[in-house]
Protein backbone atom coordinates (compact mmCIF):
# COMPACT_ATOMS: atom_id res chain seq x y z
CA UNK A 1 0.00 0.00 0.00
CA UNK A 2 2.80 2.36 -0.81
CA UNK A 3 1.07 4.51 -3.34
CA UNK A 4 2.05 8.07 -3.78
CA UNK A 5 -0.09 11.08 -3.24
CA UNK A 6 -1.05 12.76 -6.47
CA UNK A 7 -0.96 16.52 -6.55
CA UNK A 8 -3.54 17.64 -3.97
CA UNK A 9 -5.75 20.57 -4.93
CA UNK A 10 -6.45 23.51 -2.65
CA UNK A 11 -9.83 25.19 -3.00
CA UNK A 12 -11.09 28.40 -1.39
CA UNK A 13 -13.82 27.71 1.14
CA UNK A 14 -14.62 31.21 2.35
CA UNK A 15 -12.64 33.83 4.25
CA UNK A 16 -11.27 31.42 6.83
CA UNK A 17 -10.94 28.00 5.23
CA UNK A 18 -9.26 25.93 2.55
CA UNK A 19 -10.51 22.62 1.30
CA UNK A 20 -7.69 20.20 0.55
CA UNK A 21 -8.76 17.68 -2.07
CA UNK A 22 -6.46 14.67 -1.82
CA UNK A 23 -8.33 11.93 -3.66
CA UNK A 24 -11.17 11.42 -6.11
CA UNK A 25 -12.44 8.02 -4.95
CA UNK A 26 -13.56 6.55 -1.64
CA UNK A 27 -10.93 4.14 -0.40
CA UNK A 28 -9.90 2.81 3.01
CA UNK A 29 -6.31 3.59 2.02
CA UNK A 30 -7.12 7.35 1.89
CA UNK A 31 -7.56 7.56 5.61
CA UNK A 32 -3.93 7.26 6.86
CA UNK A 33 -3.08 10.15 4.51
CA UNK A 34 -5.89 12.29 5.87
CA UNK A 35 -5.00 11.62 9.52
CA UNK A 36 -1.33 12.33 8.76
CA UNK A 37 -2.28 15.66 7.17
CA UNK A 38 -4.41 16.54 10.19
CA UNK A 39 -1.47 15.99 12.53
CA UNK A 40 0.78 18.09 10.33
CA UNK A 41 -1.82 20.88 10.26
CA UNK A 42 -2.10 20.84 14.04
CA UNK A 43 1.66 21.32 14.33
CA UNK A 44 1.88 23.88 11.53
CA UNK A 45 -1.10 26.11 12.35
CA UNK A 46 -0.87 25.65 16.15
CA UNK A 47 -3.14 28.20 17.85
CA UNK A 48 -4.34 29.65 14.54
CA UNK A 49 -6.15 26.38 13.73
CA UNK A 50 -9.88 26.74 14.43
CA UNK A 51 -11.35 23.49 13.10
CA UNK A 52 -10.73 20.60 10.72
CA UNK A 53 -13.28 18.42 8.95
CA UNK A 54 -11.83 15.27 7.36
CA UNK A 55 -14.22 13.42 5.06
CA UNK A 56 -13.53 10.47 2.70
CA UNK A 57 -11.26 12.28 0.21
CA UNK A 58 -10.89 15.82 1.55
CA UNK A 59 -9.83 17.86 4.56
CA UNK A 60 -11.49 21.21 5.30
CA UNK A 61 -9.14 23.40 7.32
CA UNK A 62 -10.44 26.45 9.20
CA UNK A 63 -7.87 28.97 10.38
CA UNK A 64 -8.13 32.22 12.32
CA UNK A 65 -8.67 34.93 9.67
CA UNK A 66 -7.69 37.66 12.13
CA UNK A 67 -4.17 36.28 12.30
CA UNK A 68 -3.55 34.57 8.96
CA UNK A 69 -4.29 35.83 5.48
CA UNK A 70 -5.67 33.42 2.97
CA UNK A 71 -2.23 33.34 1.26
CA UNK A 72 -0.40 32.60 4.49
CA UNK A 73 -2.81 29.78 5.30
CA UNK A 74 -2.27 28.37 1.82
CA UNK A 75 1.49 28.40 2.33
CA UNK A 76 1.09 26.53 5.62
CA UNK A 77 -0.97 23.89 3.86
CA UNK A 78 1.51 23.58 1.02
CA UNK A 79 4.31 22.91 3.45
CA UNK A 80 2.13 20.50 5.46
CA UNK A 81 1.55 18.55 2.24
CA UNK A 82 5.21 18.52 1.24
CA UNK A 83 6.69 15.01 1.58
CA UNK A 84 3.61 13.86 3.45
CA UNK A 85 3.75 10.22 4.48
CA UNK A 86 0.69 8.25 5.58
CA UNK A 87 0.27 7.36 9.25
CA UNK A 88 2.02 4.16 10.16
CA UNK A 89 -0.27 1.15 9.88
CA UNK A 90 2.07 -1.45 11.33
CA UNK A 91 -0.13 -3.07 13.92
CA UNK A 92 0.08 -0.41 16.60
CA UNK A 93 -3.26 1.21 15.79
CA UNK A 94 -5.95 -0.52 17.83
CA UNK A 95 -9.12 -1.94 16.33
CA UNK A 96 -12.17 -0.69 18.20
CA UNK A 97 -14.84 -3.32 18.79
CA UNK A 98 -18.55 -2.59 18.91
CA UNK A 99 -20.79 -5.26 20.44
CA UNK A 100 -24.02 -5.72 18.50
CA UNK A 101 -27.20 -7.59 19.29
CA UNK A 102 -28.53 -8.56 15.85
CA UNK A 103 -32.28 -9.17 16.21
CA UNK A 104 -35.49 -8.37 14.32
CA UNK A 105 -36.86 -6.32 17.23
CA UNK A 106 -33.98 -3.85 17.08
CA UNK A 107 -32.95 -4.54 13.47
CA UNK A 108 -36.12 -4.80 11.39
CA UNK A 109 -34.21 -4.69 8.07
CA UNK A 110 -32.30 -7.93 8.78
CA UNK A 111 -34.98 -9.64 6.70
CA UNK A 112 -34.43 -7.23 3.83
CA UNK A 113 -30.71 -8.03 3.83
CA UNK A 114 -31.47 -11.76 3.80
CA UNK A 115 -33.74 -11.28 0.78
CA UNK A 116 -31.34 -9.08 -1.16
CA UNK A 117 -28.22 -11.15 -0.45
CA UNK A 118 -29.78 -14.61 -0.55
CA UNK A 119 -27.84 -15.35 2.62
CA UNK A 120 -29.21 -16.87 5.82
CA UNK A 121 -29.62 -14.77 8.97
CA UNK A 122 -26.44 -16.19 10.48
CA UNK A 123 -24.50 -15.57 7.29
CA UNK A 124 -25.64 -11.92 7.10
CA UNK A 125 -24.40 -11.39 10.64
CA UNK A 126 -21.19 -13.26 9.91
CA UNK A 127 -20.51 -11.16 6.81
CA UNK A 128 -21.20 -7.88 8.65
CA UNK A 129 -18.85 -8.91 11.46
CA UNK A 130 -16.14 -10.34 9.23
CA UNK A 131 -14.65 -7.11 7.98
CA UNK A 132 -12.55 -4.52 9.66
CA UNK A 133 -14.09 -1.19 8.72
CA UNK A 134 -12.58 2.26 8.43
CA UNK A 135 -14.20 5.46 9.67
CA UNK A 136 -14.39 7.68 6.57
CA UNK A 137 -16.10 10.67 8.15
CA UNK A 138 -18.10 11.87 11.15
CA UNK A 139 -21.19 13.88 10.38
CA UNK A 140 -24.98 13.96 10.26
CA UNK A 141 -24.94 14.10 14.09
CA UNK A 142 -22.24 14.31 16.79
CA UNK A 143 -20.34 11.02 16.88
CA UNK A 144 -22.11 9.49 13.84
CA UNK A 145 -19.36 7.59 12.00
CA UNK A 146 -19.65 6.65 8.35
CA UNK A 147 -17.77 3.35 8.02
CA UNK A 148 -16.88 1.12 5.10
CA UNK A 149 -16.67 -0.63 3.00
CA UNK A 150 -19.37 -3.20 3.56
CA UNK A 151 -19.28 -6.50 1.61
CA UNK A 152 -21.14 -5.92 -1.65
CA UNK A 153 -23.54 -8.77 -0.92
CA UNK A 154 -24.99 -6.62 1.89
CA UNK A 155 -25.25 -3.45 -0.21
CA UNK A 156 -28.87 -2.23 -0.12
CA UNK A 157 -30.22 1.24 -0.85
CA UNK A 158 -31.65 3.60 1.75
CA UNK A 159 -35.26 3.17 2.86
CA UNK A 160 -37.77 4.93 0.57
CA UNK A 161 -39.35 6.57 3.60
CA UNK A 162 -36.95 7.48 6.42
CA UNK A 163 -37.95 6.74 10.01
CA UNK A 164 -38.88 9.71 12.17
CA UNK A 165 -37.20 8.11 15.18
CA UNK A 166 -34.27 5.75 14.97
CA UNK A 167 -33.33 4.63 18.51
CA UNK A 168 -29.90 5.44 19.94
CA UNK A 169 -27.38 2.64 19.34
CA UNK A 170 -29.07 1.37 16.18
CA UNK A 171 -26.57 -0.30 13.85
CA UNK A 172 -27.37 0.27 10.21
CA UNK A 173 -26.19 -0.26 6.64
CA UNK A 174 -26.77 1.52 3.36
CA UNK A 175 -24.85 0.97 0.13
CA UNK A 176 -21.32 -0.07 1.00
CA UNK A 177 -21.39 1.79 4.34
CA UNK A 178 -22.34 1.00 7.92
CA UNK A 179 -22.89 3.17 10.98
CA UNK A 180 -24.37 3.35 14.48
CA UNK A 181 -26.74 6.14 15.60
CA UNK A 182 -25.31 7.93 18.67
CA UNK A 183 -28.69 9.32 19.78
CA UNK A 184 -32.30 9.08 18.72
CA UNK A 185 -32.78 10.90 15.44
CA UNK A 186 -34.57 10.63 12.12
CA UNK A 187 -32.82 8.28 9.68
CA UNK A 188 -33.19 6.37 6.43
CA UNK A 189 -30.62 3.60 6.84
CA UNK A 190 -31.44 -0.12 7.15
CA UNK A 191 -31.42 -1.17 10.81
CA UNK A 192 -29.87 -4.57 11.53
CA UNK A 193 -29.06 -4.50 15.24
CA UNK A 194 -28.14 -2.39 18.24
CA UNK A 195 -24.95 -1.64 20.17
CA UNK A 196 -24.83 -0.83 23.89
CA UNK A 197 -21.77 1.37 23.27
CA UNK A 198 -22.06 5.05 24.13
CA UNK A 199 -20.93 6.56 20.86
CA UNK A 200 -21.01 10.17 22.00
CA UNK A 201 -20.63 11.31 25.60
CA UNK A 202 -20.14 14.94 26.58
CA UNK A 203 -18.47 13.87 29.83
CA UNK A 204 -15.88 11.60 28.22
CA UNK A 205 -12.44 12.80 27.29
CA UNK A 206 -12.55 13.30 23.52
CA UNK A 207 -16.39 13.03 23.49
CA UNK A 208 -16.72 10.69 20.51
CA UNK A 209 -15.96 6.96 20.73
CA UNK A 210 -15.01 6.86 17.05
CA UNK A 211 -12.76 9.17 15.06
CA UNK A 212 -11.98 9.56 11.40
CA UNK A 213 -9.40 6.96 10.37
CA UNK A 214 -10.29 4.52 13.18
CA UNK A 215 -10.47 0.81 12.45
CA UNK A 216 -13.68 -0.80 13.72
CA UNK A 217 -15.04 -4.33 13.99
CA UNK A 218 -18.54 -5.42 14.99
CA UNK A 219 -18.90 -8.34 17.40
CA UNK A 220 -22.16 -10.28 17.65
CA UNK A 221 -23.52 -10.73 21.19
CA UNK A 222 -26.73 -12.34 22.45
CA UNK A 223 -29.50 -10.57 24.26
CA UNK A 224 -28.22 -11.50 27.72
CA UNK A 225 -24.78 -10.08 27.01
CA UNK A 226 -26.31 -7.00 25.33
CA UNK A 227 -28.35 -6.27 28.44
CA UNK A 228 -25.41 -6.95 30.72
CA UNK A 229 -23.50 -4.29 28.78
CA UNK A 230 -26.30 -1.82 29.44
CA UNK A 231 -28.14 -2.14 26.11
CA UNK A 232 -31.74 -0.98 25.75
CA UNK A 233 -33.98 -3.73 24.33
CA UNK A 234 -36.96 -1.50 23.51
CA UNK A 235 -38.04 -2.60 20.01
CA UNK A 236 -37.89 -0.24 17.04
CA UNK A 237 -41.37 1.20 16.64
CA UNK A 238 -43.42 0.52 13.54
CA UNK A 239 -42.98 3.06 10.81
CA UNK A 240 -45.96 5.33 10.43
Amino acid at each position, binding site marked *: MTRNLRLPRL*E*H*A*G*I*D*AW*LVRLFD*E*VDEANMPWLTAL*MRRCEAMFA*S*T*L*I*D*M*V*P*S*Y*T*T*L*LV*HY*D*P*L*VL*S*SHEARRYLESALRDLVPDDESGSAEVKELSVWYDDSVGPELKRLECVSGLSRDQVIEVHCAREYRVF*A*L*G*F*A*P*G*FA*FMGRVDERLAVPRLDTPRQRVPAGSVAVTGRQTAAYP*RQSPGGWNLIGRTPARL*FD*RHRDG*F*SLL*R*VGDRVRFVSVDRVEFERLGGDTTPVEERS
Partner: protein
Amino acid sequence: MTAPIDVVCGLRVEKAGPLALLQDAGRFGVRRLGVTQGGPADLHAWAWANHLLDNPWGAPVLEITLGGLELIAEHDMTLALCGADLEATLDDKPWLSWQVVSVTQGQRLRFGSARSGARAYLAVAGGFLAEPVLGSVACVSREGLGGHDGHGRSLAMADRLHIDRSCQASSRERYVGRRAPGKERIDYREPARLRLIPGAQISEFSGVSLFAAFNRPWHVDSRADRMGVRLKGPPLRCRLSTMISEGIPLGAVQVPPDGQPIVLLNDRQTIGGYPRLGTLTPLACARLAQCLPEQEVWLVAETPQHAQEEYRRFRLRFDVTAVPGAASHR
Protein backbone atom coordinates in the same frame (compact mmCIF):
# COMPACT_ATOMS: atom_id res chain seq x y z
CA MET B 1 -13.32 41.48 35.97
CA THR B 2 -12.13 42.10 39.52
CA ALA B 3 -15.32 41.52 41.53
CA PRO B 4 -16.33 37.90 42.14
CA ILE B 5 -19.27 36.65 40.11
CA ASP B 6 -22.56 37.01 41.96
CA VAL B 7 -24.97 34.66 40.17
CA VAL B 8 -28.65 35.53 40.39
CA CYS B 9 -31.68 34.78 38.30
CA GLY B 10 -32.08 37.72 35.93
CA LEU B 11 -35.02 36.87 33.71
CA ARG B 12 -37.91 34.45 34.04
CA VAL B 13 -39.91 33.26 31.03
CA GLU B 14 -43.57 34.20 31.39
CA LYS B 15 -44.50 33.05 27.88
CA ALA B 16 -42.38 31.12 25.38
CA GLY B 17 -42.08 32.24 21.77
CA PRO B 18 -41.26 30.11 18.72
CA LEU B 19 -37.52 30.07 19.38
CA ALA B 20 -35.21 31.76 21.89
CA LEU B 21 -31.67 30.38 22.24
CA LEU B 22 -28.61 31.42 24.18
CA GLN B 23 -25.65 31.89 21.83
CA ASP B 24 -21.99 32.63 22.40
CA ALA B 25 -19.61 32.97 19.42
CA GLY B 26 -19.99 29.28 18.58
CA ARG B 27 -18.54 25.85 19.28
CA PHE B 28 -15.15 25.38 17.66
CA GLY B 29 -12.54 22.63 17.56
CA VAL B 30 -14.99 19.69 17.59
CA ARG B 31 -16.40 19.79 14.06
CA ARG B 32 -14.28 16.76 13.15
CA LEU B 33 -16.56 14.84 15.55
CA GLY B 34 -19.66 15.84 13.60
CA VAL B 35 -20.50 18.68 16.02
CA THR B 36 -21.70 21.81 14.25
CA GLN B 37 -20.63 25.36 15.15
CA GLY B 38 -23.87 26.97 16.32
CA GLY B 39 -23.51 30.57 17.48
CA PRO B 40 -25.45 33.66 16.41
CA ALA B 41 -27.21 33.49 13.04
CA ASP B 42 -26.71 37.27 12.79
CA LEU B 43 -23.13 37.83 13.95
CA HIS B 44 -23.41 41.58 13.33
CA ALA B 45 -26.39 42.32 15.62
CA TRP B 46 -25.13 39.81 18.21
CA ALA B 47 -21.74 41.56 18.32
CA TRP B 48 -23.33 45.01 18.69
CA ALA B 49 -25.55 43.85 21.56
CA ASN B 50 -22.44 42.81 23.49
CA HIS B 51 -20.39 45.78 22.38
CA LEU B 52 -22.91 48.38 23.63
CA LEU B 53 -22.33 46.95 27.11
CA ASP B 54 -18.55 46.49 26.70
CA ASN B 55 -19.03 42.74 27.12
CA PRO B 56 -16.10 40.70 25.84
CA TRP B 57 -16.41 39.09 22.39
CA GLY B 58 -18.25 35.80 22.82
CA ALA B 59 -20.36 36.65 25.88
CA PRO B 60 -23.65 34.68 25.70
CA VAL B 61 -26.59 36.63 24.26
CA LEU B 62 -30.23 35.57 23.85
CA GLU B 63 -31.22 35.13 20.18
CA ILE B 64 -34.98 35.70 19.87
CA THR B 65 -36.52 34.50 16.60
CA LEU B 66 -39.81 36.01 15.36
CA GLY B 67 -40.87 37.39 18.75
CA GLY B 68 -43.70 35.95 20.83
CA LEU B 69 -41.58 35.86 24.01
CA GLU B 70 -42.43 37.42 27.37
CA LEU B 71 -39.87 37.82 30.14
CA ILE B 72 -40.07 39.15 33.69
CA ALA B 73 -37.05 40.84 35.27
CA GLU B 74 -36.24 39.23 38.61
CA HIS B 75 -33.49 41.74 39.34
CA ASP B 76 -32.45 45.23 38.31
CA MET B 77 -30.23 44.94 35.26
CA THR B 78 -28.74 46.66 32.23
CA LEU B 79 -29.77 45.25 28.86
CA ALA B 80 -28.98 45.94 25.20
CA LEU B 81 -31.29 44.97 22.36
CA CYS B 82 -30.04 44.79 18.75
CA GLY B 83 -31.17 43.33 15.45
CA ALA B 84 -34.73 42.75 14.25
CA ASP B 85 -37.67 44.93 15.18
CA LEU B 86 -39.91 42.42 16.96
CA GLU B 87 -42.24 45.05 18.47
CA ALA B 88 -40.38 44.90 21.77
CA THR B 89 -41.97 46.64 24.74
CA LEU B 90 -40.92 47.28 28.31
CA ASP B 91 -44.03 47.45 30.53
CA ASP B 92 -46.04 48.06 27.34
CA LYS B 93 -43.92 51.05 26.26
CA PRO B 94 -42.07 50.66 22.95
CA TRP B 95 -38.43 49.64 23.34
CA LEU B 96 -36.39 50.47 20.27
CA SER B 97 -33.66 48.20 19.07
CA TRP B 98 -29.92 49.08 18.98
CA GLN B 99 -29.73 50.66 22.42
CA VAL B 100 -29.15 50.06 26.10
CA VAL B 101 -31.86 50.30 28.74
CA SER B 102 -32.02 49.85 32.46
CA VAL B 103 -34.66 47.44 33.69
CA THR B 104 -35.94 47.19 37.26
CA GLN B 105 -37.15 44.15 39.12
CA GLY B 106 -40.69 43.15 38.15
CA GLN B 107 -40.69 44.84 34.75
CA ARG B 108 -42.12 42.91 31.81
CA LEU B 109 -40.27 42.54 28.48
CA ARG B 110 -42.58 41.51 25.69
CA PHE B 111 -41.86 40.70 22.04
CA GLY B 112 -44.63 40.89 19.44
CA SER B 113 -44.06 39.84 15.86
CA ALA B 114 -41.42 40.53 13.22
CA ARG B 115 -41.78 43.96 11.58
CA SER B 116 -38.23 44.18 10.18
CA GLY B 117 -35.77 41.31 10.35
CA ALA B 118 -36.27 37.92 11.95
CA ARG B 119 -33.93 37.77 14.95
CA ALA B 120 -33.35 40.12 17.87
CA TYR B 121 -30.39 39.89 20.25
CA LEU B 122 -30.78 40.60 23.94
CA ALA B 123 -27.56 41.08 25.90
CA VAL B 124 -27.06 41.74 29.61
CA ALA B 125 -24.12 43.49 31.24
CA GLY B 126 -21.56 40.77 31.95
CA GLY B 127 -23.33 38.30 29.65
CA PHE B 128 -25.91 35.62 30.49
CA LEU B 129 -24.37 32.83 32.55
CA ALA B 130 -24.61 29.18 31.55
CA GLU B 131 -22.43 26.11 31.78
CA PRO B 132 -20.42 25.55 28.57
CA VAL B 133 -20.85 22.19 26.83
CA LEU B 134 -17.94 21.00 24.66
CA GLY B 135 -16.35 24.37 25.33
CA SER B 136 -19.31 26.55 24.36
CA VAL B 137 -22.71 27.83 25.45
CA ALA B 138 -23.92 27.90 21.81
CA CYS B 139 -27.37 26.32 21.72
CA VAL B 140 -27.94 23.72 18.99
CA SER B 141 -31.33 22.06 19.45
CA ARG B 142 -30.75 19.32 16.86
CA GLU B 143 -27.67 18.13 18.74
CA GLY B 144 -29.07 18.67 22.23
CA LEU B 145 -26.02 20.76 23.16
CA GLY B 146 -25.60 24.09 24.91
CA GLY B 147 -28.04 26.83 25.81
CA HIS B 148 -29.33 27.86 29.23
CA ASP B 149 -29.76 24.24 30.43
CA GLY B 150 -26.91 22.62 28.50
CA HIS B 151 -29.25 20.38 26.49
CA GLY B 152 -29.96 22.60 23.51
CA ARG B 153 -33.50 23.58 24.48
CA SER B 154 -35.27 26.72 23.41
CA LEU B 155 -36.53 28.89 26.30
CA ALA B 156 -39.79 27.49 27.70
CA MET B 157 -42.33 28.73 30.24
CA ALA B 158 -40.80 29.30 33.70
CA ASP B 159 -37.21 28.86 32.49
CA ARG B 160 -34.70 31.24 34.05
CA LEU B 161 -31.67 33.03 32.70
CA HIS B 162 -28.85 33.79 35.11
CA ILE B 163 -26.78 36.95 35.28
CA ASP B 164 -23.91 38.40 37.29
CA ARG B 165 -25.46 40.87 39.73
CA SER B 166 -22.15 42.58 40.39
CA CYS B 167 -22.09 43.83 36.77
CA GLN B 168 -25.47 45.55 36.88
CA ALA B 169 -25.32 48.54 39.23
CA SER B 170 -22.03 49.93 37.96
CA SER B 171 -23.08 49.56 34.33
CA ARG B 172 -26.28 51.53 34.65
CA GLU B 173 -24.87 55.06 34.66
CA ARG B 174 -22.17 54.18 32.20
CA TYR B 175 -24.21 52.54 29.45
CA VAL B 176 -27.88 53.51 29.61
CA GLY B 177 -28.84 55.45 26.52
CA ARG B 178 -25.88 54.20 24.52
CA ARG B 179 -26.88 53.49 20.92
CA ALA B 180 -25.31 51.87 17.89
CA PRO B 181 -24.37 54.36 15.14
CA GLY B 182 -27.01 54.92 12.46
CA LYS B 183 -25.20 53.11 9.68
CA GLU B 184 -25.02 49.94 11.77
CA ARG B 185 -28.78 49.90 12.32
CA ILE B 186 -29.64 47.96 9.21
CA ASP B 187 -33.05 48.24 7.55
CA TYR B 188 -33.64 44.54 7.04
CA ARG B 189 -36.62 45.15 4.72
CA GLU B 190 -34.35 46.40 1.93
CA PRO B 191 -33.20 43.89 -0.71
CA ALA B 192 -30.00 42.27 0.57
CA ARG B 193 -26.78 42.14 -1.43
CA LEU B 194 -25.04 38.96 -0.32
CA ARG B 195 -21.32 38.73 -1.03
CA LEU B 196 -20.26 35.31 -2.25
CA ILE B 197 -16.73 34.01 -2.72
CA PRO B 198 -16.97 31.79 -5.81
CA GLY B 199 -15.36 28.40 -5.54
CA ALA B 200 -16.07 24.74 -4.93
CA GLN B 201 -17.88 23.27 -7.97
CA ILE B 202 -18.79 26.59 -9.63
CA SER B 203 -17.14 25.51 -12.89
CA GLU B 204 -19.57 22.59 -13.16
CA PHE B 205 -22.59 24.88 -13.52
CA SER B 206 -23.87 25.85 -16.97
CA GLY B 207 -23.05 29.32 -18.30
CA VAL B 208 -26.71 30.29 -18.36
CA SER B 209 -27.08 29.23 -14.73
CA LEU B 210 -24.03 31.23 -13.68
CA PHE B 211 -25.40 34.31 -15.39
CA ALA B 212 -28.75 33.80 -13.68
CA ALA B 213 -27.15 33.21 -10.28
CA PHE B 214 -25.51 36.63 -10.20
CA ASN B 215 -27.86 38.75 -12.34
CA ARG B 216 -31.34 37.81 -11.20
CA PRO B 217 -33.05 38.46 -7.89
CA TRP B 218 -33.57 35.51 -5.55
CA HIS B 219 -36.39 35.20 -3.07
CA VAL B 220 -36.15 33.72 0.41
CA ASP B 221 -38.22 30.55 0.77
CA SER B 222 -40.33 29.81 3.85
CA ARG B 223 -38.03 26.82 4.46
CA ALA B 224 -35.46 28.81 6.38
CA ASP B 225 -33.97 28.04 9.77
CA ARG B 226 -30.65 27.99 11.62
CA MET B 227 -29.44 25.08 9.47
CA GLY B 228 -29.99 26.83 6.18
CA VAL B 229 -32.02 29.19 4.04
CA ARG B 230 -33.47 28.05 0.73
CA LEU B 231 -33.64 30.54 -2.15
CA LYS B 232 -36.25 30.53 -4.91
CA GLY B 233 -35.51 31.55 -8.49
CA PRO B 234 -34.51 30.20 -11.89
CA PRO B 235 -33.34 26.59 -11.43
CA LEU B 236 -29.54 26.30 -11.66
CA ARG B 237 -28.17 23.44 -13.71
CA CYS B 238 -25.02 21.62 -12.64
CA ARG B 239 -23.23 18.78 -14.42
CA LEU B 240 -22.81 17.05 -11.07
CA SER B 241 -25.83 15.84 -9.10
CA THR B 242 -24.23 14.46 -5.95
CA MET B 243 -20.65 14.06 -4.85
CA ILE B 244 -18.64 12.32 -2.16
CA SER B 245 -19.48 14.18 1.06
CA GLU B 246 -17.02 16.83 2.16
CA GLY B 247 -16.70 19.42 4.94
CA ILE B 248 -19.09 22.34 4.56
CA PRO B 249 -18.08 25.85 5.66
CA LEU B 250 -20.48 28.45 7.07
CA GLY B 251 -22.29 30.19 4.21
CA ALA B 252 -21.76 27.41 1.65
CA VAL B 253 -24.27 27.80 -1.19
CA GLN B 254 -25.23 24.27 -2.15
CA VAL B 255 -27.45 23.40 -5.09
CA PRO B 256 -29.42 20.14 -4.85
CA PRO B 257 -30.82 18.55 -8.05
CA ASP B 258 -33.95 20.77 -8.00
CA GLY B 259 -31.65 23.73 -8.81
CA GLN B 260 -32.76 25.89 -5.89
CA PRO B 261 -29.79 27.01 -3.78
CA ILE B 262 -29.61 26.48 -0.04
CA VAL B 263 -27.29 28.71 1.99
CA LEU B 264 -25.96 26.69 4.92
CA LEU B 265 -25.84 28.52 8.24
CA ASN B 266 -24.65 27.94 11.80
CA ASP B 267 -26.49 24.69 12.61
CA ARG B 268 -25.77 22.98 9.26
CA GLN B 269 -24.54 19.41 9.11
CA THR B 270 -20.75 19.33 9.13
CA ILE B 271 -20.43 17.41 5.84
CA GLY B 272 -22.54 17.33 2.69
CA GLY B 273 -22.57 16.05 -0.85
CA TYR B 274 -24.29 18.59 -3.13
CA PRO B 275 -22.35 20.80 -5.55
CA ARG B 276 -21.73 24.36 -4.38
CA LEU B 277 -21.35 27.77 -6.02
CA GLY B 278 -19.07 29.01 -3.28
CA THR B 279 -19.32 30.55 0.16
CA LEU B 280 -21.10 33.65 1.48
CA THR B 281 -19.01 35.91 3.69
CA PRO B 282 -19.81 35.77 7.43
CA LEU B 283 -21.48 39.19 7.27
CA ALA B 284 -23.56 38.11 4.28
CA CYS B 285 -24.74 35.10 6.32
CA ALA B 286 -25.62 37.51 9.13
CA ARG B 287 -27.63 39.67 6.74
CA LEU B 288 -29.43 36.68 5.20
CA ALA B 289 -30.40 35.43 8.66
CA GLN B 290 -32.54 38.58 9.04
CA CYS B 291 -34.49 38.05 5.80
CA LEU B 292 -38.11 36.98 6.06
CA PRO B 293 -39.80 34.69 3.48
CA GLU B 294 -40.36 36.31 0.05
CA GLN B 295 -37.69 38.94 0.64
CA GLU B 296 -35.47 39.75 -2.32
CA VAL B 297 -31.75 39.00 -2.19
CA TRP B 298 -28.93 39.27 -4.75
CA LEU B 299 -25.74 37.24 -4.95
CA VAL B 300 -22.66 39.39 -5.58
CA ALA B 301 -19.26 37.86 -6.37
CA GLU B 302 -16.43 38.91 -4.03
CA THR B 303 -12.72 38.13 -3.80
CA PRO B 304 -11.47 36.27 -0.72
CA GLN B 305 -8.99 39.09 -0.01
CA HIS B 306 -11.67 41.80 0.11
CA ALA B 307 -13.99 39.63 2.15
CA GLN B 308 -11.24 38.91 4.64
CA GLU B 309 -10.39 42.62 4.97
CA GLU B 310 -14.05 43.44 5.54
CA TYR B 311 -14.27 40.81 8.27
CA ARG B 312 -11.10 42.03 9.95
CA ARG B 313 -12.41 45.61 10.03
CA PHE B 314 -15.65 44.32 11.53
CA ARG B 315 -13.86 42.31 14.21
CA LEU B 316 -11.28 44.95 15.12
CA ARG B 317 -14.11 47.28 16.03
CA PHE B 318 -15.13 44.90 18.82
CA ASP B 319 -11.68 43.83 20.01
CA VAL B 320 -10.64 46.89 21.92
CA THR B 321 -7.34 45.34 22.89
CA ALA B 322 -4.86 44.03 20.32
CA VAL B 323 -5.85 40.87 18.52
CA PRO B 324 -4.92 38.05 20.87
CA GLY B 325 -5.25 35.38 18.18
CA ALA B 326 -7.39 32.30 18.16
CA ALA B 327 -8.19 32.51 21.86
CA SER B 328 -10.59 35.39 21.27
CA HIS B 329 -12.27 33.46 18.52
CA ARG B 330 -13.17 30.36 20.49
